[in-house]
């Protein structure tokens, strides 16, 4: 009995793990994000957007170098740092040189750390980490390294842009900040206090509070406090069920003003808010979809929706990752020497189909781009989210947000 078990185990391990890098003409990109468990819808939708972008923007246009094509391989990390590190090892063993990941800054921290160590210890098979969504500022500050590139605006840059907009509105005098009790929630809360203090010292922060993440069943007591504080504006970094429940609760308890959020869109949240959140919810984001900024963008979203009717074009930056990576590989003239590719990415400027210019800042590998404030509405929406009729409509735009923002990054180049 035992012998069979061992033998079977051997067969399984051998087939799954030793699939070598025998494909010379495909460049594999490992997508390490949750594909099962509570965050799977975000992860699966992201994987679809990657596959679609690789196909439409690279492969159909003749690929990179001498016709090499991109292939996105999904790895399920179950949003666990431990599993991510195992899957990273599996990906590296398959000869993959490019890792993309975005959900959870905790996972991103674990990955950037592990990749830095791996590249130091194994100079022969180094990999690049293209972070498309984790916005913890530390990743491009204290914890920055040469192998990590961030394509989303970080939490500080987004808050900088958001407070610019708030500062212009003289009718706002009271702000309430609430968030989940963990690194990101704390980063949002600290940034809000700092920027508001600089830009509008007269604005009073009437509440600045953290609640346990994913454990709050009923937000009513919080909303009561918010409403009775007389706040004009709420700022929150909540996501997932915490975002939905907080938003619904404050609206139900009579809050009238705008709720500025980072993540109150797509993945069922837009549909669940529906009419209730109209003109109240606002999003600090990048990548404009309503109105579509260019004809290319409109056609791209239409093609995506035709293929994935239940999907959302919610992370437009994914196209930037793919396009910029393709450009960098072409410039470097190699896909295997990741140092050359990284050097090509540094300082790259790129016109995006979502409007505006992108600039990969060499000092900290933070992408500088336009940051937008969008509003949840059903009016004038060409591309809705969750097929709900509601979508995010552009309200204001901060060009090249945070271009001169300081960084504490001391990049060590190989």
């Amino acid at each position, binding site marked *: *009995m*035992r012998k069979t078990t061992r033998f079977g*185990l*051997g067969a*399984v*391990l*051998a087939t*799954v*793990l*030793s699939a070598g890098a025998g494909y010379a003409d495909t460049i594999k990109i490992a997508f390490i994000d949750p*594909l*099962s*468990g509570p965050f*799977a819808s975000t992860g*699966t939708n992201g994987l*679809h957007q990657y596959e679609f972008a690789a196909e439409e923007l690279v492969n159909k246009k003749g690929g990179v170098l001498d016709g090499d094509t991109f292939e996105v391989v999904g*790895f*399920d990390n*179950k949003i*666990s*740092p*431990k*599993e991510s*590190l*195992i*899957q990273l*090892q*599996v990906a*590296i*063993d398959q000869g993959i040189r490019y890792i993309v990941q975005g959900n959870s*800054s*905790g996972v991103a*921290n*674990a990955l950037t*750390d*592990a990749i830095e*160590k791996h590249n130091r*210890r194994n100079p022969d098979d180094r990999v690049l980490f293209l972070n498309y969504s984790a916005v*913890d500022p*530390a990743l491009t500050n204290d914890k920055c390294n040469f192998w990590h590139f961030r394509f989303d605006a970080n939490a500080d840059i987004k808050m900088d842009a958001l407070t610019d907009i708030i500062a212009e509105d003289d009718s706002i005098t009271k702000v309430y900040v609430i968030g989940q*009790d*963990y*690194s*990101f929630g*704390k980063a949002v809360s600290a940034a809000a206090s700092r920027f508001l203090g600089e830009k509008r010292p007269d604005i009073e922060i009437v509440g600045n509070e953290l609640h*346990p*993440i994913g*454990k709050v069943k009923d937000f009513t007591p919080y909303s009561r406090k918010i409403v009775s504080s007389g706040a004009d504006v709420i700022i929150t970094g909540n996501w997932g069920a915490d975002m939905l429940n907080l938003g619904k609760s404050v609206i139900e308890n009579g809050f009238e003003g705008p709720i500025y959020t980072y993540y109150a869109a797509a993945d069922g949240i837009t549909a669940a808010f529906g009419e209730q959140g109209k003109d109240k919810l606002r999003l600090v984001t990048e990548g404009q979809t309503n109105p579509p900024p260019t004809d290319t963008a409109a056609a791209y979203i239409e093609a995506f929706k*035709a*293929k*994935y*009717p*239940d*999907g959302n074009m919610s992370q437009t930056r994914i196209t930037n990752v793919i396009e910029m990576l393709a450009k960098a590989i072409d410039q470097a003239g190699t896909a295997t020497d990741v140092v050359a590719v990284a050097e090509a990415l540094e300082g790259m400027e790129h016109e995006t189909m979502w409007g505006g210019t992108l600039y990969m800042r060499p000092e900290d590998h933070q992408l500088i781009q336009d940051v937008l404030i969008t509003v949840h509405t059903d009016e004038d929406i060409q591309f809705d989210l969750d097929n709900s009729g509601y979508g995010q409509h552009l309200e204001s735009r901060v060009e090249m947000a945070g271009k001169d923002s300081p960084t504490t990054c001391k990049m060590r180049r190989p």
Partner: protein
Amino acid sequence: MTDTTHNTHSDVLAGSGLTLAKALPWLIASAFLLVMPFVFTSNSAITIMNQMAITIIFALSYNMLLGQGGMLSFGHAVYMGVGGFLCVHIMNWDQFFGTLPLPVLPIFGGLFGMGLALIVGSFSTRRAGTVFAMISLGVGELIAACSVIIVVFFGGEEGISGDRTYGLPFFGIEFLQQIEVYYLTAFWLVLSALGMFLFSRTPVGRMANAVRDNPERAEFLGYSARWVRFYSFVASGFFAGIAGGLFAINYEILTEENLNLATSGSILLVTFLGGVGFFFGPVIGAIVFTLLQTVLSLQTELWALYVGALFVATVMFFPGGLAGVLMMHTPPLVLGKLHLLVKPYIKTLLPAAICILATAGFIEILFHARHAAIGDDQMTLFWMTFSHANPVPWIAFGAVALGGFWLARRNAPELVETWHEANTDTGARP
């Protein structure tokens, strides 16, 4: 991976003194661990084997409570977690870590896990049963919640990370490569498994069994059930802490995930799946579960569904777990009638396996049809590529599932009959 299967033999032949028969399984297991990296050379295979080894230690330590002491814990992850966190802190403490060879590090994790178990055990082991289970749940939830609040020690949501290579080189080894870490982990695996095995053979370990089965009688014999539980609990905390230390060395990062209830729950699953009644049960459970989690999840998104179904089926039909199923075959083996079972097994279990695979295939098609992109109706299943819009695969998988079920069901009585026969001693043959 350690083949401690034979332990039960030495269990049966429990004599005194070290005999070759007793030491043999351990020697085989150790040799096996030495050879494994030459069979599976890729880094990812070694990473997965490391993960298995850590899970094995953790599951064995959990079984000291559940299997040997009858204590159901819902918060065992915290002892492994805090041990691991401490080890990462030591890694970051340059002056001290620079003078410490890395292989010694897990001891500190073990001691710290033991320290926490001493504190919690002092009140939680007063009673067994539901009170113990609920206290473990409460303490587990409290410490997991603290992990995001007490940032100084737990590092908040992103956890804390260190670098194992800053330790004092150990005979020139700096532990830069996975393979070096593998041998370190394997060494600790054998050492801890042996330690836990020997613990179960000490008077305290034996009394833990007695207290599990009948606390009142044990009390009448003059043993304090509470203290017996307490000793087991503390020892279990120590070995969980060792597993935590190895985790720290292997991954060089610890996060909230190492403490939360999901981790505590999954170790219960692992242990029960393997079988709580035998010392080597958790070993099998850890190997199977790690493979399911890392390898099956690469194959299908629905892996958790299958694992859940497997778990429920195990509890319902094989409460002894996989080890129990294996050990059911000892009597036929002793009677020399194992060969009788081969044919009925093929006749019943093969169709049953086909039925299960076909059902899984049917579920996969259903899932693909519901969730795949428009125009992307091609799917590959069991090395066949077809379209989910095509009714043929649906019918084929459905028919194979039903056919397999029918065949297995038809042949089941024969299996039962042979089973009884194989377990009946018909007297010694000449």
